[in-house]
């Protein structure tokens, strides 16, 4: 065929008149194949002309590449060495071209890399400072030492704490919310509006800064929150993360959005506002929240340590409080015990011979006068508690002044008017007491241990005092007479009877204290008349009164009448009244101990 065509090529020339009639077959062939001949000639020309060929290829090249690219990656592989070579030679020839081209990309990329590196460095530094002196910090140091890794790396590995708080599944075209999950019940805003606004912001960022469709906002930070966005063809996954999200999170999100696209491709494409089919995607979104739980689990040892530390701290505090309380009470008990012992020792009639603590109980032994204070009563007031002290007391007689006095009181049983005190072997009584008690006390006190002398100088003998006052009363009553008469006036008869009774009482009282009464009845006369007459009349007067008194009930009283004349006037005579007073009889009473009846007299 080739030969045929080539051979025929020359025949394309207009047929000559000479050959026309000679070769009818040739003529027929010519007639039949002329159009094809022309086409073939044209084709040949195209094939032979590289320019036309290039033109042709250029027409279909983009489509061809596109078709091939959808089929496999052969094209990329084939072009790779060439592209690499091209870039290399471009750089070799003039690096500026590529630098200029890459500049807008490299700047942000470098900034991003630096800022993220700085961020983690600062974070790790903070963590280091925070953890340096904790149990956790020591643990990390140990781990770094053990594994040979640098400490910051260990800290970074162990402290990438974050929490995915919310995950939004957003329809990419409309910005409508398809699904939303949240790990916290609080603080969830209207997710549908947030979804819309998030889309708007992404659109805004892309419009303002993004070059083409594929460059979009995939992460931004708001305070502690980072919003991570993973986008698919139809839907976008936005995760709100508290803390520093690790790079793995992007992978988790990407996997989730891919799975959702795979499972719900049709629903995504046909979405017209009804989000119900995307209930199915919930578990996928929740899986993204689980990332947080896994991270929590990773942190768990730290959390455990923290909890353990908190527990330890709390226990320590409780223990310290316990010790403090116990010490306080122990101290208090010790103080009370000391005070109790001191009080016992100070107590008269108690002698502590031994004290201490045995088997958790206090004990005290010693001597105790039966008249001393009761140690049990003292224990009550010491607040030590009844059962807390074991006591053993042996009885003895204390020579302590107070005890001596107490013992004396017990034996002598003084009347209420007497105070007994003892000091330096002297038992002193003060106040007033009947004569009889005083005599008895004098006698008994000699037998008391620790008493060398009984001092009753401060003691009034009530009996003697009564006698004395009666005596004075009787002596102060003169019986007056008429002028030159020794006869009692009628009105004085009664008075004499009274005197007689008083004397009888006096004699009785005196007798009780072992004394006898002797009454000198002294008669007097006034200064008128002669002394001789006066003596006579005075003697008569005395005798008269003495006999009258002796006639009364005055047993045991000795009356001795005596006439004093006018030599012992009661008053100096100036008036008649003075003279009348001097014409009288007075009684002068002498009280003397009865001989040999009372051994001791005062």
């Amino acid at each position: 065929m080739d030969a045929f065509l080539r051979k025929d090529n020359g025949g394309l020339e207009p047929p000559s008149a000479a050959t026309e009639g000679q070769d009818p077959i040739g003529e027929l062939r010519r007639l039949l194949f002329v159009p094809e001949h022309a086409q073939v000639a044209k084709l040949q020309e195209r094939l032979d002309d590289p320019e036309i060929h290039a033109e042709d290829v250029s027409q279909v090249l983009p489509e061809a590449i596109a078709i091939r690219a959808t089929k496999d990656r052969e094209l990329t592989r084939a072009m790779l060495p060439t592209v690499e070579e091209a870039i290399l030679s471009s750089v070799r020839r003039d690096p500026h071209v590529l630098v200029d081209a890459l500049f807008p990309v490299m700047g942000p990329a470098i900034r991003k890399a630096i800022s993220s590196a700085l961020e983690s460095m600062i974070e790790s530094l903070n963590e280091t400072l925070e953890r340096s002196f904790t149990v956790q910090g020591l643990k990390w140091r140990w781990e770094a030492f053990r594994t040979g890794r640098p400490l910051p790396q260990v800290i970074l590995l162990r402290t990438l704490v974050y929490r995915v708080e919310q995950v939004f599944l957003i329809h990419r075209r409309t910005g409508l919310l398809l699904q939303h999950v949240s790990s916290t019940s609080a603080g969830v805003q209207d997710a549908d509006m947030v979804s819309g606004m998030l889309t708007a912001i992404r659109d805004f960022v892309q419009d303002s800064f993004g070059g083409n469709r594929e460059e979009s906002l995939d992460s931004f930070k708001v305070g502690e929150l980072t919003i991570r966005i993973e986008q698919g063809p139809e839907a976008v996954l936005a995760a709100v993360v508290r803390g520093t999200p690790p790079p793995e999170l992007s992978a988790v999100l990407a996997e989730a959005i891919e799975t959702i696209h795979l499972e719900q491709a049709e629903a995504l494409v046909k979405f017209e506002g009804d989000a119900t089919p995307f209930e199915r995607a919930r578990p996928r979104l929740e899986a993204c929240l689980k990332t947080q739980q896994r991270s929590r689990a990773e942190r768990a040892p730290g959390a455990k340590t923290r909890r353990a530390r908190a527990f330890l701290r709390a226990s320590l505090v409780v223990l310290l409080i316990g010790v403090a309380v116990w010490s306080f009470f122990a101290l208090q008990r010790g103080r009370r015990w000391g005070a109790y012992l001191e009080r016992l020792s100070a107590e008269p009639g108690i002698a502590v011979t031994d004290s201490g603590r045995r088997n958790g109980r206090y004990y005290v032994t010693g001597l105790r006068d039966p008249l001393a204070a009761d140690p049990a009563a003292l224990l009550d007031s010491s607040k030590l508690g009844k059962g807390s002290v074991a006591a053993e007391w042996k009885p003895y007689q204390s020579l302590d002044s107070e005890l001596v006095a107490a013992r004396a009181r017990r034996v002598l049983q003084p009347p209420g008017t007497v105070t007994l005190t003892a000091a330096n072997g002297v038992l002193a009584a003060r106040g007033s007491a009947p004569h009889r008690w005083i005599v008895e006390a004098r006698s008994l006190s000699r037998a008391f241990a620790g008493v060398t002398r009984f001092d009753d100088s401060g003691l009034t003998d009530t009996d003697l005092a009564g006698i004395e006052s009666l005596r004075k009363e009787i002596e102060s009553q003169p019986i007056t007479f008429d002028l030159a008469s020794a006869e009692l006036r009628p009105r004085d008869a009664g008075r004499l009877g009274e005197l007689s009774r008083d004397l009888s009482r006096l004699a009785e009282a005196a007798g009780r204290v072992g004394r006898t009464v002797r009454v000198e009845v002294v008669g007097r006369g006034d200064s008128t008349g002669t002394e001789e007459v006066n003596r006579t009349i005075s003697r008569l007067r005395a005798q008269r009164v003495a006999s009258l008194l002796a006639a009364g009930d005055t047993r045991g009283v000795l009356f001795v009448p005596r006439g004093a004349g006018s030599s012992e006037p009661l008053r100096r005579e100036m008036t008649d009244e003075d003279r009348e007073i001097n014409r009288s009889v007075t009684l002068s009473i002498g009280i003397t101990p009865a001989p040999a009846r009372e051994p001791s007299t005062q």
Partner: protein
Amino acid sequence: MIQKKVCMLGAYAVGKTSLVSRFVKSLFSDKYHTTVGVKVDKKIVAVGEEQVNLLLWDIYGEDDFQKLRTSYLRGSSGYVLAVDGTRRETLEKAVILQSRAHEMLAGVPFVLMLNKADLVEKWEVDDSAVEDLVAQGWPTFRTSAKTGEGVEEAFLALARRMAGA
């Protein structure tokens, strides 16, 4: 519940924000208008038995300083054209905005809100011009953010059209 994205379009200061602040639920500050150029709010209307959750993209009014970001229109199921009845030029702007929206959202339903209907004495928009638009099939509502006149009806009408009812 069905969700629909709805754009609010209109010239500067036609009262979109007032409509939004009184009749819809807001979460974000008005600051977004001037920064991002859009603020997303929501309005729930009942179409028959169905509750429709309208996510209103209140797009910052186009003016000399800022062009309409058409990317915000993407995915809208409907839009609202807001006009200030007391400023004739806002109606002209609405017509321009409609044509631009139409480029991207052909066949998407919309309503025209002639706002500030309460300021009758200052009314500038020609009735004839409005009638022309109505004749072209523009669903037109006289609304007042102040009195609430026509607002619910307009949103409901839009929701109905979007739902294809």
